[in-house]
């Protein structure tokens, strides 16, 4: 049965974390003032602080939550579909494709194209995954073939990206900064289009999450239980890729969330990951909002790349969960 208590606790944690993230920064604004401003109550902040809350921090926090939820959920789905605990959302070339798209935009001599970086990154990611599907043949008859073609397509895209970087050395810094991920470009317009795509993809994944149990079995067993395994895999991977490509185009490549969070939730809930997909999304959102809070406050006023924080915090935590899991033979 669905453990609603865990989901409720994860929701509460996310709300608190988001509140704290809006409150903390180079200009400290109290939690109560943040709440008053958000709810537009009397004695809400005005002037500069109001702009900081509503136009700078809030869109960034909301985007962080969306990206974290997208990456964590996609990671959990990829791990289930590919029967591989190390699968991450970038597995099928989404990261390399998006990286290539972003590099093309950043190395372009036309300024107009550079401003279209998110679009280029999104198209690059989606095209790379579609190419992986196409090359694997039989449209996903065999998950391992798809996985291998994803690796090949990813390597090819990275090779072109490196070539372009070498040809345009002035673009090296912005490209690397993008590769390490950041949420500085967050604005309400980025938040709104990200929310549409990520919301749509997550709605699909949540709706099929219970059926994903069947993909943990062999295709023959799934078929006998009334599932069309090939169709469900295409559906699930398609939605997870849409969420990932949107996240990457909005915030660059943020590693580790897609692997750490599903394992973390599984370690805590001791349930099959896809049965706690909503909790995975909520924890992913909290994790990334916290990581971004660390990224912008630890060396304030300078900012650390968010990928550094996710790996710095995520890696030891992941090892801890892994060790406890091994002890429990889980």
């Amino acid at each position, binding site marked *: *049965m669905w453990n609603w208590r865990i989901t409720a606790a994860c929701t509460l944690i996310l709300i608190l974390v988001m509140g704290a993230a809006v409150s903390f920064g180079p200009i400290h604004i109290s939690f109560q003032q943040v709440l008053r401003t958000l709810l537009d109550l009397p004695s809400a902040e005005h002037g500069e602080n109001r702009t900081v809350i509503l136009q700078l921090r809030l869109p960034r926090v909301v985007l962080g939550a969306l990206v974290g939820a997208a990456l964590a959920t996609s990671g959990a789905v990829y791990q289930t579909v590919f029967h591989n605990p190390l699968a991450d959302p970038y597995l099928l070339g989404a990261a390399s494709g998006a990286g290539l798209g972003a590099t093309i935009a950043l190395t372009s001599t036309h300024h107009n194209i550079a401003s279209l970086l998110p679009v280029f990154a999104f198209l690059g990611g989606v095209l790379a995954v579609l190419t992986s599907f196409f090359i694997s043949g039989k449209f996903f008859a065999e998950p391992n073939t798809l996985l291998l073609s994803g690796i090949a397509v990813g390597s090819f895209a990275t090779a072109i990206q490196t070539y372009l970087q070498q040809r345009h050395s002035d673009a090296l810094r912005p490209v690397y900064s993008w590769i390490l991920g950041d949420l500085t470009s967050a604005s309400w317009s980025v938040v709104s289009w990200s929310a549409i795509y990520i919301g749509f993809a997550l709605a699909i994944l949540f709706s099929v999450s219970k059926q994903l*149990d069947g993909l943990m079995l062999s295709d023959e067993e799934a*078929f*006998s239980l009334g599932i069309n395994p090939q169709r469900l895999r295409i559906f699930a991977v398609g939605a997870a890729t849409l969420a990932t490509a949107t996240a990457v185009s909005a915030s660059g490549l943020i590693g580790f969330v897609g692997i750490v969070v599903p394992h973390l939730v599984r370690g805590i809930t001791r349930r*099959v990951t896809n049965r706690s997909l909503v909790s995975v999304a909520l924890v992913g959102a909290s994790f990334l909002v916290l990581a971004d809070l660390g990224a912008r406050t630890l060396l304030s006023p300078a900012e650390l790349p968010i990928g550094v924080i996710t790996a710095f915090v995520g890696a030891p935590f992941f090892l801890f969960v892994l060790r406890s899991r091994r002890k429990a033979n889980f």
Partner: protein
Amino acid sequence: MMTSGSITVTDLVVHYGERAILRDINVQIPHGQWTCLVGPNGAGKTTLLKTLLGMTPYAGSIQDRSQEVFKNQTRNIAFVPQSPSIPQGMSVSEYVMLGRSKKDGWGKESKKSRNLVKEILVQTALFGMHNSFVSQLSGGEMQRALIARALAQEPDLILLDEPTSALDLHHQIAVLNTIEILKERGVTIISTMHDITLAAMYAQNIIVMQSGKILLSGTADQVIHSPELKAAFDNRIDVFTLDTGRPVIVASKDFPINSQ
């Protein structure tokens, strides 16, 4: 549950790429009985089993209750694979409950299903470990969990791929006795099996396959005592009859397995 009639296979051919894995298969498999597919490795037993499930494309015809089986998910079938994928983080009772998914809907559990699963867990001696993870089960326990899930499906037809391979004799008998519960309920059972002696002990019908073709089929008694059985195994088996009348089939000592 319907126990008369049969699954009718006519001129069946199955290809993997250019290679024909099954050729000219014509056979009738009776409903409500246990039929065993036997034969050497590579004979096409597992392919025939998966084709009967309806997942493998084929030429020819397989009719079950007047319906072609390919991609037909209206049939009530349970499939027990030889090497199952073990879902991480799933408890034994959740695993057995998967068998109710088609009836209850995914992620839902009716009260009837909960009671039935509890009953099945007791029946298959898994009740004490219902909260353990399936990844913690031994080979014999995992096989029982697979059969328990199949029982929970309340199937009309169960397909088992080598249900006793990799089990010691004690566990082989335990698993086969559990499958017999289904036979008593009138479920059609089709299994592949390497051990012809065990096949003769449990199944009513035996189909002997070699190189993608059916060499011999009939009741267990007819097939075991047929002179063609030895030919099917290149004369590398001996058939003995015990005082109890039970046949025992063993590899012939005079023809080492690796000799030509």
